[in-house]
């Protein structure tokens, strides 16, 4: 008869202690913060206490139950934190979007106004302008990055991996610094870019202004206005360029990883059949890369929708280049109409969740094991 091995009870104390020390530290951190913030006793300190108690309780439960319910005891803290900080704000802003919330005095009771926030949002032409601009930004940024990234990936496909670490540099720079850097380079008085264009024989380009691009400037007035409304302005392109500069290397890295993983034999047989370089590229490389290109496009779409800092650095909340993200923060910094702001956040969240759902479908289409 095989009994439970008796040495199971003997646990290696040192590793367990290490594990517990980690948890004690993480419980101790909020306590430390609490002591520092004791001067004003408010909801904040209650929250900190709650957090540290939660941690201690968790530690207790984990050592008490050991392997029993391990699947759940391990996942509970992460999921409860995520739930608290993602679902709760969503419900909160959903509620706030039906009230007239004053940003000046949040504690005052909010008068209920029904759907009026949404109605005024959708009847505002600014909302539609911003929506069109965001869509345009998304489409242009993703397309240009994809083509430039593909070109870069093909150019660098023979280069050793070590040298590619240069690619990482723009991605790791804080986006706000990128924005400021480009702002200084676009500077009209002593900007680097205009100087460079000057040496090449071009005249000064009015970056960071709302002027219409020269190809459209010959148009008569109403059409010119239309071009301006469709964002064919220098300002729009000056917010587009930093994003392209920063993220094209990433697209190139994705595609490069894809190209490297392609089977060698297909190319050999194509060569034997007498396919030219262009034919090989068009009929073999692109179709084989298709899944990776799809994933890249989706990831870039989600990331482009997050772009905030470069636009802020260059224009603050300038009305001519506002994207949805900028429009959202105008409610925080300028108008203080949090009810309408919440309504817009809900709209944006719904739009993004559509993209996320599409992403999910495409990513898991081939997996039969996925159950819903």
């Amino acid at each position, binding site marked *: 008869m095989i009994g439970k091995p008796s040495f*199971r009870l003997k646990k290696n104390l040192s590793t367990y202690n290490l594990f517990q020390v980690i948890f004690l530290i993480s419980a101790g951190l909020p306590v430390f913060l609490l002591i520092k*913030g004791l001067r004003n006793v408010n909801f904040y300190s209650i929250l900190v206490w709650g957090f540290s108690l939660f941690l201690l309780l968790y530690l207790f439960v984990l050592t008490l139950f050991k392997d029993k319910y391990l699947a759940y005891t*391990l996942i509970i803290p992460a999921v409860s934190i995520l739930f608290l900080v993602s679902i709760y704000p969503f419900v909160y802003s959903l509620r706030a979007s039906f009230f007239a919330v004053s940003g000046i005095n949040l504690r005052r009771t909010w008068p209920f106004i029904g759907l009026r926030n949404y109605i005024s949002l959708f009847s505002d032409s600014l909302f539609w302008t911003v929506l069109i601009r965001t869509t345009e930004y998304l489409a242009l940024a993703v397309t240009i990055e994809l083509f430039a990234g593909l070109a870069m990936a093909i150019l660098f496909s023979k280069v050793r991996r070590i040298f590619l670490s240069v690619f990482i540099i723009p991605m790791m720079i804080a986006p706000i610094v990128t924005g400021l850097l480009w702002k200084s380079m676009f500077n009209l008085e002593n900007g680097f870019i205009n100087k460079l264009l000057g040496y090449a024989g071009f005249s000064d380009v009015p970056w960071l202004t709302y002027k219409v691009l020269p190809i459209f400037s010959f148009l008569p007035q109403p059409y010119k206005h239309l071009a301006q409304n469709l964002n064919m302005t220098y300002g729009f392109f000056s917010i587009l360029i930093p994003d392209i500069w920063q993220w094209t290397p990433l697209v190139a*890295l994705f595609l490069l990883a894809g190209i490297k993983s392609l089977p060698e034999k297909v190319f050999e047989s194509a060569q034997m059949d007498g396919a030219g370089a262009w034919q090989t590229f068009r009929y073999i490389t692109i179709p084989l890369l298709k899944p990776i290109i799809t994933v890249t496009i989706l*990831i870039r779409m989600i990331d482009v929708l997050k772009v905030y800092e470069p636009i802020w650095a260059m224009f603050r909340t300038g009305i001519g280049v506002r994207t949805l993200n900028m429009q959202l*923060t105008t409610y*925080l910094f300028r108008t203080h109409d949090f009810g309408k702001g919440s309504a817009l956040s809900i709209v944006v969240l719904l739009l993004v969740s559509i993209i996320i759902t599409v992403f999910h479908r495409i990513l898991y289409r081939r997996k039969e094991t996925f159950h819903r």
Partner: protein
Amino acid sequence: MILSSFKPSELFGTKQIYFIFKPTLENYKFIFHQYPFLSYLRNSLVVTFTSTFLSIVFGSLAGYSLARFKTGGEPLAFWVLSTRMLPPAAVIIPFFMIYMRAGLINTLFGLIIAYMVFNLSFVVWMTRSFFGEIPVELEEAAMLDGCSRLGAFIRVVLPLAKNGIAATAVFCVVFAWNEFLFALVLTTSEAAQTLPASVNRFITKYEIHWGPLYAESTLIIFPILIAALFMQRYLVRGLTLGALKG
């Protein structure tokens, strides 16, 4: 930019670009002495490392549970991931309102919580794929030798996934260090403001102090570029949230 951070201030207002000039440390002196750079640095360090630490601890536990026990199945895992895909600007208004009512505005703890959420879902997703790659047989062998499941996780799985977790941690540090919008909205003074948000202060209505701005920007990106060297191998994987392996 790094070059410009050593530039004397009188060269910024002119119409020329100078590549050759007498280097000066006046910009660095300015940010260290006449500007609360050190308190911004302290805030950045505290917020970055605390939020990274907490999200790594909780995230890797949850990641293990998702990888081994398939808790909640694929929907739960994808919900965790989807919280990361939301644009921060879309959640900043409810965050601001909740923080305002809770008195969390301009506190380090508030920022730590905000950063932890974004990093937590990332850590869960990444560690889930790292743990998933480690064969179950190793754990079973350890359990036959008398380990508990938790013990097997700590002694066998964690050491094997060490590199992946370290790379994930570096990613979290980079995200939290570079984060701008939450720091801008949720903090107001040097009591809790982090470095990226404080760069903003050099841009006033009347002029931009380019010299100190360049100096501070250099100091912001320098540690990150060093960190980037460590995670080259995991970069593609980290930035695609595990969808691609490079």
